[in-house]
């Protein structure tokens, strides 16, 4: 309801505005007393005057009047000024034609309020009374109209003429230029965003408007009726397009029967193509003009609904604009049917152009705002992504830290266990031996074993960069030193200079397990097999699925029974050693092969391609 009230206010404001905008004319030089000769009858008339509608240019109504010219008063040249006429005039002073508006196509359009001015050659003017005749050419269906004629000094008439030109000609051109630019912009928008036909519809409406504005209407004698048909059809088509635009703009579906709105335009166009004048013009007035009104009314309804539903600035603005145009249209209708006294100034076209420009500007504004939203959305997205990234990074770092701490704790636990199992046991054994009064060799052996174990653990802590060869190098030194008192030679055979493949995943506890296996093999060879020679072979094999290392320890001792049936104490000790070796190999994913006979023992340790991360085999 407030909306309707506001629209009523706008209507009043529009009417007042139109009244105010009515250009004032230099009334001092008005010539309004004329005698009209029409259809053979001469009668006095007072301008402004309406004549009957007609469709023939022959024998036009002839207005004859008189004005007084004083040569001594005339400082400058005199002009004749016709503010408004329809459709065309031919003005003669003292029988000589000074102005023929038929030559100016735009001046003859009834929907424009084009004024005309013409200088009267000084030689034509007589001191005293002069005769002025105006032939009014009328082509229907509108009635002919001739506003007051002004004759006087050019300096006095020119400003009024300029004002009218500015209002009704230049402004129209300016609006049309804007419209054409907006049409291009909207067409591009539509081309880039096919799923938004609203831009395309408005672009077509604007193109039609521009065409209507710039293509000169043919003057009737030149009956290029096809062009006329297009021009006549344009107004109802445009208005239908505007309704379509409104429906689409507010996000509704364009109903199929809505296409009927285009029917009048189409009918006028077809008739214009087929039939000659004056039928298309009659059709235009009876079908086209009401259609424009209906469309405007529909548009007003659409916008009103949109205002009620959406309550936003865009629908509100368009609603107000439609109300203004509708008011102007009603004003023009009243003017056409001479219901109100007027000077027959048509403002629909002008207000419509202004509305289109406003809508176009609004659309462009909306488009720019959408772009801004996209920008800010993109900005927000970037910020969000960055935030998420940082959170992720932080949590990743936390996770990494936790994993590192866990790995460290794991490593520490293993080290403790290794020290406890190996070194601790050996030291306890030393203490026990000392307490029982053992002397010499036994304690020495136990202490050496403890020291060896300590070296092994310390050595394995060193970063060897995944190169097991570096650990084996140290082990070779220790083993050689260990074997030297027993006078056993350690043969060291490495198949390639590289030795073993690199294992980045190699951990100290893997190294400890492997070195202990080798230690056990050497110890067995010395203690139980009485070997004289031990050979360590290191090679890299490739079974087609990537390289893997193999370490073999071969001795030339007397061998031992692998079954370990417990014949002697030594045999059971050996059996326990073998069990240990197997379980150690299993823990680090290696495969242990044992072969023993009377001529020697061979321990073959096949390393995994990738060392396991966790102690999968347990223990």
């Amino acid at each position: 309801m407030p909306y309707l009230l506001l629209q009523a206010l706008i209507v009043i404001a529009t009417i007042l505005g139109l009244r105010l905008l009515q250009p004032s004319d230099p009334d001092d030089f008005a010539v309004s007393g004329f005698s009209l000769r029409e259809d053979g009858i001469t009668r006095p008339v007072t301008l402004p005057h309406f004549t009957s509608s007609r469709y023939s240019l022959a024998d036009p109504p002839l207005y004859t009047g008189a004005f007084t010219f004083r040569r001594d008063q005339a400082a400058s040249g005199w002009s004749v000024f016709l503010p408004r006429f329809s459709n065309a005039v031919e003005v003669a002073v003292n029988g000589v034609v000074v102005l023929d508006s038929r030559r100016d196509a735009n001046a003859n359009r009834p929907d424009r309020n084009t004024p005309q001015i013409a200088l009267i050659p000084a030689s034509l003017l007589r001191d005293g009374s002069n005769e002025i005749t105006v032939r009014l050419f009328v082509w229907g269906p509108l009635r002919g109209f001739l506003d007051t004629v002004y004759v006087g000094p050019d300096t006095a008439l020119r400003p009024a003429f300029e004002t009218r030109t500015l209002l009704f000609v230049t402004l129209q051109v300016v609006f049309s230029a804007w419209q054409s630019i907006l049409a291009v912009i909207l067409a591009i928008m539509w081309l880039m965003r096919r799923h938004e036909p609203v831009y395309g519809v408005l672009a077509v409406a604007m193109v039609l408007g521009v065409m209507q504005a710039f293509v000169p209407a043919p003057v009737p004698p030149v009956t290029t009726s096809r062009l006329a048909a297009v021009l006549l059809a344009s107004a109802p088509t445009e208005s239908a397009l505007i309704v379509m635009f409104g429906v689409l703009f507010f996000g509704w579906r364009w109903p199929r029967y809505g296409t009927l709105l285009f029917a009048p335009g189409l009918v006028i166009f077809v008739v214009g193509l087929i039939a000659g004048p004056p039928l298309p013009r009659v059709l235009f007035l009876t079908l086209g003009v009401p259609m424009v009104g209906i469309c405007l009314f529909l548009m007003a309804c659409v916008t009103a609904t949109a205002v009620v539903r959406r309550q936003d600035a865009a629908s509100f603005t368009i609603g107000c604009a439609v109300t203004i145009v509708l008011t102007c249209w009603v004003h023009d209708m009243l003017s056409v049917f001479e219901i109100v006294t007027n000077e027959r100034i048509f403002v629909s076209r002008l207000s419509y152009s202004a509305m289109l420009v406003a809508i176009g500007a609004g659309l462009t504004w909306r488009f720019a705002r959408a772009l801004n939203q996209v920008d800010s959305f993109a900005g927000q997205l970037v910020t969000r992504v960055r935030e998420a990234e940082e959170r992720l990074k932080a949590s990743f770092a936390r996770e990494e830290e936790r994993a590192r701490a866990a790995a460290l704790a794991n490593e520490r636990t293993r080290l403790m266990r290794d020290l406890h199992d190996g070194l601790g046991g050996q030291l306890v054994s030393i203490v026990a031996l000392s307490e029982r009064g053992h002397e010499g060799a036994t304690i020495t052996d136990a202490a050496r074993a403890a020291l060896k174990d300590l070296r092994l653990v310390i050595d394995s802590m060193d970063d060897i960069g995944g190169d097991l060869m570096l650990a084996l190098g140290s082990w070779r030194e220790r083993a050689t030193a260990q074997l030297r008192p027993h006078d056993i030679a350690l043969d060291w055979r490495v198949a390639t200079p590289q030795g073993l493949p690199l294992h980045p995943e190699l951990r100290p506890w893997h190294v400890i397990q492997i070195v202990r296996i080798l230690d056990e093999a050497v110890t067995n060879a010395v203690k139980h097999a009485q070997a004289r020679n031990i050979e360590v072979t290191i090679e890299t094999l490739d079974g087609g699925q990537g390289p893997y290392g193999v370490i073999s320890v071969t001795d030339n001792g007397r061998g031992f029974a692998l079954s370990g049936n417990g014949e002697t104490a030594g045999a059971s000790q050996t059996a326990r050693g073998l069990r240990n070796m197997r379980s150690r190999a299993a823990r680090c994913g290696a495969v242990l092969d044992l072969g023993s006979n009377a001529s020697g023992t061979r321990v073959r340790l096949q390393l995994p391609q990738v060392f396991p991360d966790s102690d999968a085999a347990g223990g």
Partner: protein
Amino acid sequence: MSEQGETGEAITILLVEDDAPTCWRLQDALVKAGYEVRSAGTLAEARSALAEAAPRVLLTDLRLPDGHGVELIREIRQRFPDTEIMVISALGDEESVISAITVGATGYLLKDAFPTDIATTVRDLVAGHSPISASIARFIVRRTQGAAQSSAEPSPGPVLNTAKLTPREIDILWGIAKGFSYAEIASHLGLSRQTVPGHIKNIYRKLEVHTRSEAVFEAVQQGLIKL
């Protein structure tokens, strides 16, 4: 049986070790091999022993009751350039051995080495063969790798300038670290077996920090000297 130098005299060894049993053990092994051994339990005793005559070989522990063995090594290196210096280490840990090498030591001796090995090591040293263990070689080559990869994160342990080492010397160190014998290294690298010990001696020399200020700086860096 008596080990003799080129002049025919007995080779003198100054043994600096504060742990009496270890000292006896080493001394027994060396004396049995024919060396003339004087022993000292502290830095002060070692210095007073040096006042009499320069030893041919210095064997010193690093942790002594009245100071650090590194000080002694540096002093002897300056006063008696011909003296061969070895560090006595319990476990042969890189930390202490490398520290000693940077001030001029050319080898190390494990405290629990078998008596025959003790004598052999000293004999080799006097003959000009600096022994180098796989773990020490490993430490040095890992350090050269670390220097090549990134200088951003300094490796733990003593500062070691490996920039002067030639690629060949680094290859030799790699071979030793991987447990290859001198003969194997020589054949892999296309060298004569006899030249390998000379290369190793050069490696020791190159790792030594020569100028006094450099040495002090290094020592401070390693926390060996407290200012």
